[in-house]
């Protein structure tokens, strides 16, 4: 399998204000959000990132989308470094997160053309792609309505269509169903399945175990900025992580081990906290 993503010893810290430092009860005004994380992802693979709040998932994804720079380490996206060739990486990556929004004052139609232009896609090509994407997501019906007047679900559909305007090779989803109702969430999961079937490479972070179990080929578990486990669901379920799970190893049912169980096992073993 061809490698599309190679994350090498990624490290990222943030300076904190006095207030943030007190809030987090840290000894120094600095927080390590990503701590020496390495992993690979392959063409056509759905790679899941799982971890508690504040584990560093979003930070990793932002580095992959070149929105922030790592302190050290690098990520090679389809042969291009996020540090030295961010411009090319941006052409290869689509980033979907509910932190990035579509402008309320414009119509999906306008915004699609706008982003197509920024990606340097020729007019005729982008028109064809718009027709295709708008049809599949049913954006046609409200393509001329300003985003501000759209329902949450319509907005999500428009966002999805726009985020892959440049037909990216790798698509990064940060908690794509977070805060959505079940109907809208289904739009997103259906889209994920579609992309997977199309053979796209996907990096997905979510707190929904079911989604990870159904979609992901491999899963990386991140706790406190560190990648503590990274493998296929089946391998994770086998007893390879017992080095972490010391005491609880005997009670760990590998055969029926759901991702949820595996996660809590690893979490307790890593943090020495009982959930």
């Amino acid at each position, binding site marked *: 399998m061809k490698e599309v993503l190679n994350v090498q010893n990624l490290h990222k810290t*943030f300076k904190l204000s006095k207030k*943030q430092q007190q809030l987090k009860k840290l000894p120094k005004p600095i927080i390590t959000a990503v701590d020496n994380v390495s992993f690979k992802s392959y063409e056509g693979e759905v790679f899941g990132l799982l971890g508690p709040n504040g584990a560093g998932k979003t930070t990793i994804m*932002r580095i992959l*989308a*070149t*929105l*922030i*720079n790592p302190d050290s380490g690098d990520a090679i996206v389809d042969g291009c470094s996020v540090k030295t060739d961010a*411009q*090319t990486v*941006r*052409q290869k*990556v689509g*980033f979907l997160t509910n*932190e*990035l*929004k*579509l*402008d*309320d*004052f*414009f119509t999906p139609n*306008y915004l699609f053309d*706008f*982003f197509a*232009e*920024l*990606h*340097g896609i020729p007019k005729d090509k982008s028109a064809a792609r718009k027709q295709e994407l708008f049809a599949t997501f049913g954006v046609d019906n409200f393509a001329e309505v300003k985003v501000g007047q759209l329902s949450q679900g319509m907005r999500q559909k428009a966002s999805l269509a*726009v985020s892959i305007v*440049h037909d990216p090779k790798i698509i990064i989803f940060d908690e794509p169903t977070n805060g959505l109702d079940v109907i809208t969430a289904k739009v997103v999961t259906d889209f994920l399945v579609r992309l997977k079937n199309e053979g796209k490479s996907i990096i997905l972070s979510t707190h929904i175990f079911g989604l990870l179990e159904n979609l992901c080929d491999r899963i990386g578990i991140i706790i406190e900025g560190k990648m503590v486990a990274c493998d296929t669901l089946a391998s994770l379920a086998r007893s390879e992580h017992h080095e972490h799970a010391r005491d609880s190893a005997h009670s760990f049912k590998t055969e029926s081990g759901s991702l949820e169980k595996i996660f809590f096992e690893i979490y307790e073993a890593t943090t020495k906290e009982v959930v």
Partner: protein
Amino acid sequence: MRNNVLTVMKKECARIIGDKKLFFTTVLLPGLMLFIMYFFMGTFMAAMFTVDDDYMYQIHTVNLPDSIAEIMQPEELRLEILPTQPHEIEEVKARIENRETDVLLIFPENFDELVANFHRDADIPAPNIQVWSNMTRTESGEAGGIVMQLLNAYHFELTHIFRINAPEYAPDGRYDLATDADLFAMIIGMMIPMLFIIFIYNGCMSIAPESIAGEKERGTLGSILVTPARRRDIALGKILGIAVFALMGAAVSIFAVLLSMPALLAGMEMEASVWEMYSLLDFALLFFVAISTTLVAVSLLSVLSAYAKSVKEAMSYAAPTMILVVLAGTSGLIFGGVPEGAGVFFIPIVNSSLSITAIFSADAINVPNVLITIATNFALTVTLTLILAKIFSSERIIFDK
């Protein structure tokens, strides 16, 4: 991908055109306000200081002698003589004080006789004429002036000792060498730069925070930053997009000033033509000063806004700069005119204010200083654009917690 500048700029423009309120406040409102202010100032002053052409001044007279009655007769003087009895004096004075009537003239009895028999050497004082008027009533002030002139002329005619400003030396009757144009230029040279700069800056203040901090706040800036568009192109596109409308606002403002000037001139009873007062060079310089000033204002406010997390915060950063801008707008007054040296023309906004003062004033303008102004402003805009691009490349721009 240079055309990304254009793409970002076009969206910025579409955003402003699509928002009628925003368009109105940035493009039309400044000009409208300038026009209304100057126009009404002009008409108001006109109404205050002029008297209708067919108005008859009411002149109450006590003991009016024949000699004076005769010189007050001509119809073009529009003096209506109202003979009054001595016991009515207090009542008429009260009416003048209440701005109900114009002038009260009190002569001693047998005025002509007293004048004829008056000897300079004698101990008795010369006969006196009392002229009562009230200058807060335009008609009364004017009538008082007319009567005084008539009496003075009569006095000279009787004495024949000397004359002042006789007509033969100044055929047009004007001895004041200041032309109306000079006077007007002096007055507006002081007023226009401040209003002009404040309105331009105010126009930018209503778009820049919305366009930069607003996009941050609404989470839409990140969507643009994940595209391969260069940060510099995005920054430049945004600044140019905002500038287009700020410039339209500036153009409307200039136009409004020009439109309102005739009213202002008329109000000050001045005969001068804006078109004759200023040359094509003046207008060209004004145009470039306006453009460069607008660009400075836009890029300055854009950089400030980029540091803010919300439109509200951006506005709170921008507000104190407004005070500096108002101060800079009065540079002409602070420096007591336009300095000759080039030094101050390197200070942004101050240089614009002084250049505009220089352009409007009647004195010959120091063109190199105006060119320094324009060059300084363009250089500053480029620098600020690069700074904005730098901020866009920094991760703090969107994820500063």
